[in-house]
C-alpha cells in the first residue's frame, strides 16, 4: 500500500469543518427508559459506595442489603415492563446510538441474571452460619480485607466487629456489567461490559472469611488469567475493527456477508482481508470461551470455584455463565453468521472436549466445590451444543438451559455453605458421608440439585438437556448429541456417587454439622428447588417464553 493511498484523518476532518457548525456534532440520543434495568443497578451501586462512606458502620449492613435487594427487584420490574411493552418481540430495537440491543434474548437473559443474582445476594447476606465472633454476627466475608491473615490487625478487626459490606456495591457493579454483556451491540461495549463485571468478581474472590490464603490465591489466578484472556479479546476487537472499519455489529456483519459494495481500493489490504477476520474472530471467541469455562480455556475454573467464598462461587458460576453465553450467542449469530462454515467445526470440537473433559475429570475429584466446578465445565459443553445448532430453536434452547442451570447452581452452592465443621465449610467429600442420616432434609434437597445436574427426568436439567440436544440434532449436529448423551452418562455416575455417599454410608463420629440458616439462605434454596421442579414438571410456559424471545435484532 502506498503512503498516498492511506486515508488521513485531517482530510476527513477538513471536509467536516467546512460545514456549518451545527452539522459538525450531532448530539447522541439515549433511550433512558429502555436502558432502565442497567441504569437502576448502576445507580444503586454508586449509592452503595456512598453509603460505605457516610452511613455509620453499625447500619451499613442493613442499608446495603436493603439497597441491593430493592435495586435488583426494581431492575427486574423494569425488564418485565419492557418485555410487556413488546420490546422483546415486535418493538425490538437498537438503543443508545447502536451500543445496546433491546431485544428478546437480551431481555430474557437480563431477567434471568437479575433473578438469580437476587437469590445469590441472599446467601451473601447470610449471618447465622458462622458462630458469633465477640458478640457480632458474621457473614462469609473477611472482617478487613487489607489485614494480613492471622495477624494482630486481623484479630483487632474481628474484635471490633468489622464486616466487608463493600461486597454489596461490588456485586451490583458486577451485575450491571453482566446486564450489558449479552445486550452489547458493538465491540467496544462488549469489552467494557466484560471488564465491568470481571473486575468486581476478582475482588469478591479474595475476601473469604475462612481459608483466606486459598481465597487470595484464587483471586490472583482468576485475575491474571482473566486479564490475559481479555487482552486476547481486545486484540481480536482491534483486528475485526481493522477488517470492517467499524466496531458496530451490524456493519461488521455486512462486511462479513460481502453485502458492502464499493470497498475503497485504498483499503484493499485491510478491509475485507479474511486473515484479519479469521484471526480476530478466533481471538474474540477465545476471550468469551474463557469466561464460559470451555475446555481449552477452563484451567482457572476449579481453583477459583474452590477458593472463592462459596456465596461468590454460586453467584459467579450462575450469572457469569448466563451473561457470557448471551454475548457468545449474539456474536456468533449476529456478527459472524456469514462465517458459520468456519466457526462451526471449531465450536464442534470445543463442545466435544468440553463435555467429555469436564465429565471425566470430575470423577476423580474429592472436593465438593471442585466437583461442581468440573460439572459446570461439562454443562458449558452441553450449552455449546445448542449454540452450534445455528437455528432459532438453538437460541431458545440455550436460553432455557441457562435459566434451568443457573438456579440449580445457586441452590447447590447455597447447600454447600450449610455443611460445616470447626474449620468453616466442610467441602471434602469424605465428610459428606452419611449426611442423609444426620440431616435428611438438606441431603434430600442436595440430591434434587444433583439429579437436576445429571439431567434426570422431572427436573429442569432433563428439560434443558432435551431442548438443547433436540436443537443440536435438528441443526445437523447429531454426532454432537451422541457425545453429549455419553458424557451425560459419565457425569451421572459422579452425581449419583455423591447421593449414594450421603444416604447409604455411615456418618463419621467427627463429621460435620449442618448449620441452621436464616430465612435468607432458606429462600435461596427453596427458590432453587422450586424452579428445578417447575421447569421439570411444567416447562411449557417457559419453553414458549424462551422461543418467543429467541430472535436477535440486527
Amino acid at each position, binding site marked *: 500500500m502506498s503512503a498516498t493511498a492511506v486515508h488521513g484523518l485531517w482530510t476527513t476532518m477538513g471536509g467536516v469543518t467546512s460545514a456549518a457548525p451545527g452539522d459538525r456534532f450531532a448530539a447522541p440520543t439515549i433511550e433512558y427508559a429502555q436502558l432502565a434495568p442497567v441504569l437502576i443497578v448502576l445507580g444503586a451501586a454508586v449509592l452503595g459506595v456512598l453509603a460505605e462512606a457516610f452511613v455509620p458502620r453499625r447500619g451499613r449492613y442493613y442499608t446495603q442489603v436493603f439497597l441491593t435487594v430493592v435495586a435488583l427487584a426494581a431492575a427486574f420490574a423494569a425488564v418485565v415492563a419492557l418485555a410487556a411493552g413488546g420490546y422483546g418481540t415486535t418493538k425490538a430495537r437498537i438503543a443508545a446510538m447502536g451500543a445496546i440491543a433491546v431485544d428478546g434474548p437480551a431481555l430474557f437473559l437480563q431477567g434471568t441474571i437479575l433473578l438469580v443474582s437476587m437469590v445469590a445476594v441472599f446467601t451473601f447476606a447470610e449471618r447465622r452460619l458462622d458462630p458469633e465472633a465477640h458478640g457480632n454476627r458474621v457473614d462469609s466475608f473477611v472482617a478487613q480485607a487489607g489485614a494480613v491473615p492471622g495477624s494482630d490487625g486481623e484479630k483487632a478487626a474481628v474484635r471490633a466487629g468489622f464486616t466487608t459490606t463493600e461486597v454489596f456495591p461490588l456485586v451490583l457493579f458486577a451485575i450491571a456489567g453482566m446486564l450489558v454483556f449479552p445486550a452489547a451491540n458493538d465491540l467496544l461495549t462488549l469489552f467494557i461490559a466484560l471488564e465491568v463485571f470481571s*473486575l468486581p468478581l476478582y475482588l469478591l474472590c479474595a475476601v473469604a472469611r475462612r481459608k483466606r*490464603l486459598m481465597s487470595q490465591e484464587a*483471586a490472583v489466578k482468576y485475575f491474571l488469567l482473566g486479564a490475559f484472556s481479555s487482552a486476547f479479546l481486545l*486484540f481480536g476487537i482491534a483486528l475485526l*475493527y481493522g477488517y470492517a472499519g467499524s*466496531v458496530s455489529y451490524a456493519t461488521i456483519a455486512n462486511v462479513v456477508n460481502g453485502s458492502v459494495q464499493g470497498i475503497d481500493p485504498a483499503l484493499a*489490504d*485491510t478491509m475485507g482481508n479474511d486473515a484479519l477476520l479469521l484471526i480476530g474472530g478466533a481471538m474474540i471467541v477465545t476471550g468469551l470461551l474463557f469466561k464460559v469455562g470451555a475446555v481449552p480455556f477452563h484451567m482457572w475454573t*476449579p481453583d477459583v470455584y474452590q477458593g472463592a467464598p462459596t456465596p461468590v462461587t454460586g453467584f459467579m458460576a450462575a450469572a457469569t455463565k448466563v451473561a457470557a453465553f448471551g454475548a457468545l450467542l449474539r456474536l456468533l449469530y449476529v456478527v459472524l453468521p456469514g462465517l458459520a462454515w468456519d466457526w462451526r467445526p471449531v465450536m464442534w470440537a470445543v463442545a466435544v472436549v468440553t463435555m467429555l473433559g469436564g465429565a471425566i475429570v470430575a470423577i476423580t475429584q474429592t472436593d465438593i466445590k471442585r466437583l461442581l466446578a468440573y460439572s459446570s465445565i461439562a454443562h458449558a459443553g452441553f450449552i455449546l451444543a445448542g449454540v452450534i445448532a445455528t437455528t432459532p430453536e438453538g437460541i431458545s434452547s440455550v436460553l432455557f438451559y441457562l435459566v434451568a442451570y443457573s438456579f440449580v447452581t445457586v441452590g447447590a452452592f447455597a447447600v454447600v455453605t450449610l455443611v460445616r465443621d470447626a474449620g468453616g465449610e466442610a467441602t471434602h467429600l469424605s465428610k459428606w458421608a452419611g449426611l442423609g442420616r444426620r440431616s435428611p432434609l438438606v441431603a434430600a434437597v442436595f440430591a434434587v440439585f444433583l439429579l437436576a445436574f445429571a439431567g434426570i427426568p422431572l427436573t429442569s436439567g432433563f428439560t434443558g438437556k432435551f431442548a438443547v440436544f433436540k436443537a443440536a440434532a435438528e441443526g445437523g449436529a447429531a454426532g454432537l448429541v451422541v457425545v453429549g448423551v455419553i458424557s451425560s452418562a459419565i457425569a451421572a455416575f459422579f452425581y449419583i456417587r455423591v447421593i449414594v455417599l450421603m444416604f447409604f454410608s455411615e456418618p463419621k463420629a467427627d463429621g460435620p454439622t449442618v448449620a441452621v440458616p436464616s430465612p435468607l439462605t432458606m429462600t435461596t434454596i427453596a427458590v432453587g428447588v422450586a424452579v428445578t421442579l417447575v421447569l421439570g414438571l411444567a416447562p411449557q410456559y417457559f419453553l414458549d417464553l424462551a422461543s418467543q424471545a429467541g430472535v436477535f435484532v440486527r
Partner: protein
Amino acid sequence: MNPVNYLYLAALLFTIGASGVLVRRNAIVVFMCVELMLNACNLALVTFSRMHGNLDGQIVAFFTMVVAAAEVVVGLAIIVSLFRSRHSASVDDASLMKL
C-alpha cells in the same frame, strides 16, 4: 511510512507480552506483560483508525487506557494482599489447591 509496519510492531509486542505471561514467575511481571498486550492492542487500534480514516479505533484506545488503569488498581490490590500474607509474589508458590 507505511502504516502496516505499525501493525507488525503491534503483533510483535502482543506476542512478547503473551509469552511473558506464560514464562515469567513473578505475579507483578506477569501483570506487566498483560499491560504490554493491552498497549499492543492500542497501537493496532490507532493504526487501523488511521488507515480507515475514522475515529472509532482511537475512541476504543481511550477506553482501553481507562480499563487498563482500573485493572492496575484491582490487580495490584490483589497481588499486594497475596504478597503480604505469603512474603512472595511468585505464581508457582500459590499452589494450595493443587491435587
